[in-house]
């Protein structure tokens, strides 16, 4: 494990040479700032709402890798005073699906900070997020000597066909994509890394109905009090050292946890699936996108009679998708 961790560090360092700083405002980062790190590819339409959402939660600085976008992402992001931007045209896949880049950013700028690592379609929800800022959460985690905070990915979808309602720049995607599956998830322990392997939700239900084993993982650990010895191993699903993956209680109790609302299934999805398939830059040779493309052609509605409509974090808590744990 230690060797694997070292290997991750070396990879990150090697892959860092692919990154070109477009706008480096990292000298504005103060010692207790909360940082957000992300990789984007042609996602300009999502960025305005994304940035504002996290600014409102209390993120102080954004560190973003632009992976060869052609839709004006770079111009938009370099206009923001709290965004540091890197550009690369290198292969996302060969950078271990962006993990190497992220690890390098974390190692270089994240040491000693709380860092939130999310994709531009992931929106972090945590207990009391409607009344308490993310700083309240990180202060509490510090106080409780907790280093990492888990948040399961929750796929959100609209009612009706995905392309019925177009998404507009700056819009809250959950104005219409506000449905989710509340109770069809499976959890398995990964003995090697100590994390939970969570699958299920609409993707498993519709696209992976007959091969649930292949369904995408939903367990994520996006919020970490970073130390330069840490590294992500596979997306934000697991980390090293392994102790960081232990965001669940094994003795009957519940630890506090959050949710990443996943606004993947908008009208932009079909185009994205086509593009990503052509790019072949995604996990397991884009098999996931292949399954989607098939599914999207034949059965385009994810919504069903038992879908739950999103209201707020308390609802997710009551449904048992996340927990307040000991935080009151």
């Amino acid at each position: 494990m230690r060797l694997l961790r070292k290997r991750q560090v070396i990879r990150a360092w090697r892959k860092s040479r692919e990154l070109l700083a477009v706008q480096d405002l990292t000298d504005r980062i103060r010692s207790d700032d909360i940082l957000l790190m992300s990789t984007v590819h042609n996602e300009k339409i999502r960025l305005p709402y994304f940035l504002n959402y996290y600014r409102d939660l209390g993120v102080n600085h954004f560190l973003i890798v632009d992976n060869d976008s052609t839709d004006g992402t770079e111009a938009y992001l370099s206009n923001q005073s709290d965004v540091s931007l890197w550009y690369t045209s290198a292969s996302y896949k060969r950078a271990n699906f962006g993990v190497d880049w992220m690890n390098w950013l974390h190692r270089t700028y994240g040491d000693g900070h709380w860092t939130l690592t999310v994709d531009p379609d992931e929106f972090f929800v945590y207990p009391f997020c409607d009344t308490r800022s993310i700083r309240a959460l990180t202060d509490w985690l510090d106080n409780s000597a907790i280093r990492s905070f888990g948040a399961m990915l929750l796929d959100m979808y609209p009612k009706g066909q995905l392309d019925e309602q177009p998404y507009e720049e700056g819009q809250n995607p959950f104005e219409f994509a506000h449905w989710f599956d509340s109770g069809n998830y499976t959890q398995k322990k990964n003995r090697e890394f100590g994390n939970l392997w969570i699958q299920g939700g609409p993707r498993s239900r519709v696209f992976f109905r007959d091969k649930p084993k292949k369904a995408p993982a939903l367990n994520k650990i996006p919020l970490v009090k970073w130390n330069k010895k840490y590294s992500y191993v596979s997306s934000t699903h697991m980390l090293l050292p392994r102790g960081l993956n232990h965001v669940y209680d094994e003795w009957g109790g519940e630890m506090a946890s959050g949710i990443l609302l996943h606004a993947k299934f908008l009208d932009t999805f079909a185009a994205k699936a086509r593009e990503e398939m052509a790019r072949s830059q995604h996990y397991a040779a884009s098999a996931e996108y292949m399954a989607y493309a098939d599914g999207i052609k034949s059965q385009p509605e994810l919504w069903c009679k038992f879908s739950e409509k999103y209201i707020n974090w308390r609802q997710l808590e009551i449904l048992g998708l996340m927990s307040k744990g000991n935080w009151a």
Partner: protein
Amino acid sequence: MTVGIVMLVHTALNRAEQVARHWTSSGCPVVIHVDKNVDRPTFKAFQQALAGDPLVRFSKRHRCEWGTWGIVAASQSASELILKQFAEVSHVYLSSGSCLPLRPVQELIDYLSERPRTDFIESATTADVPWTVGGLDQERFTLRFPFSWKRRRRLFDGYVRIQRAIGFRRKIPTGLVPHMGSQWWCLSRQTLSAILQDPNREEYDRYFRRVWIPDESYFQTLSRQYSTNIESRSLTLSKFNFQGKPHIFYDDHLQLLRRSDCFVARKIWSRAERLYQAFLCDGMAAMKKTEPNPGKIDRIFAKAVERRTRGRPGLYMQSRMPNWDWENGLTSNPYSVFQGFTELFENFEPWLAKATDTRVHGHLFAPERVEFANGQTLINGALSDSAKQRDYAPRSFLTSLIWNTRGERQCFQFGPNDNQDVAWVFSRDPNAQVSVISGAWAVPLFKSNRNFSDLRKDAAKFQKIENEHLKILRKSTAKAKVRIWTMAEFIEAPMEPIQTIVDEIGAISGRRLTEAPTMVDLTGFGQFLQNLKNQGMHPYLMGDFPVEPGPINQPSPPRKPYLVR
């Protein structure tokens, strides 16, 4: 007559300054102790900011670390200073920089001047309270603790082990009975000065210097020596979590804190702007004469601790994945498993749904698909009827189903043709009511129109599987409410067991069943079993069936529903 405030401060100095001004504006003198770990420039700036206030003093600085003597030393020197410098002080209130007064200061002054001789200090003997964290209760007074728990944990633990091994015990100074309690107290001048000017103080201090967490026991023990009137409670509202750390209050606790009627609360998040704004103005001086009533806050925090330590039974999710036998309940709600009933009765499922007002599924673990009630393809929580999805994690399937349908009892059929993995789950589950008519799987075989050699093969297979299954149900580890009848036994008097099961489900109150489910026509079943026997396959799970048609006391014709009064 006024109350003096001793304030122990180590971070969020701006908030401490705000609170100190609030106290002094009502005429309460404040002595501030700043932790020595705060660097000099920061301290100087802080001192400067409060320099203009004649009621503020700064006491000698000590290094304060959690669980060590420093905090007591700090309280001592600050208390000495306040008693010496402010003669009008009749009570001293120990507070921290993250404490916030919730009621107008004048109310506190009035409250205390009505009780001039009372000491408010939580103080209990170690034997009687379960507060301690880490297992050191009585031992904290009889061992020595020279090492820091936070920084040198290994040394700390090792030294404790060594002392235990050699049977080391410190002598408690004569006359002292160790007491413990919240470190936030409010003592009268008489008691406090008696403690501080005790001729034996040097001896006591030497003793407590090596006691574990002396700030929770020094004043608590010594005040028992001198006080004439101890109220064993803290005037500071302070709740602790299961790790012994204080719960923190945020802006959204505003209403809760208002209604608590407590004088001071701890610990307040330093960025809880709304709380500081709301409570640090004396505008709301309604002059209530109520006693502090933290009941509601108590409940909320007790619930939080419960959620963290026991969790919600039957919930498996990203931050709750209990180990084997640590589930506190395998599932969230009671449910019923029926084996052999739907085979023996023609209309068992709709009949049961009507009789009990529950949701009655078919064979949920059938090989082709999940047979949800009414042929649905999905159910609550968007749980799918795909057999592959279910068999990928049968246990999750069952626990999710029961969790998703909280509030409505679930019943399902089970049999030897179903996925047997789940039997291990429900046999251990006290929520499961399992009723088995053993051998009833033979009825569909008997009724089917297939080649006898195939039937024989299936019968052999089912018998073997069911036998294994019954073994699981009869294990000593099985916690489900299990009832097993052989088929022969059951059909002799079917209504009695059914009545018991339905009564236990207890949905429709105390009525006798008026309508029985229709039993399948069993004419020739005995001969069928005999044929199996003749083929060398001995069916033994159904009990003894006579070869001649029809069991003895089966009312004839058996197809007609009968009434039981």
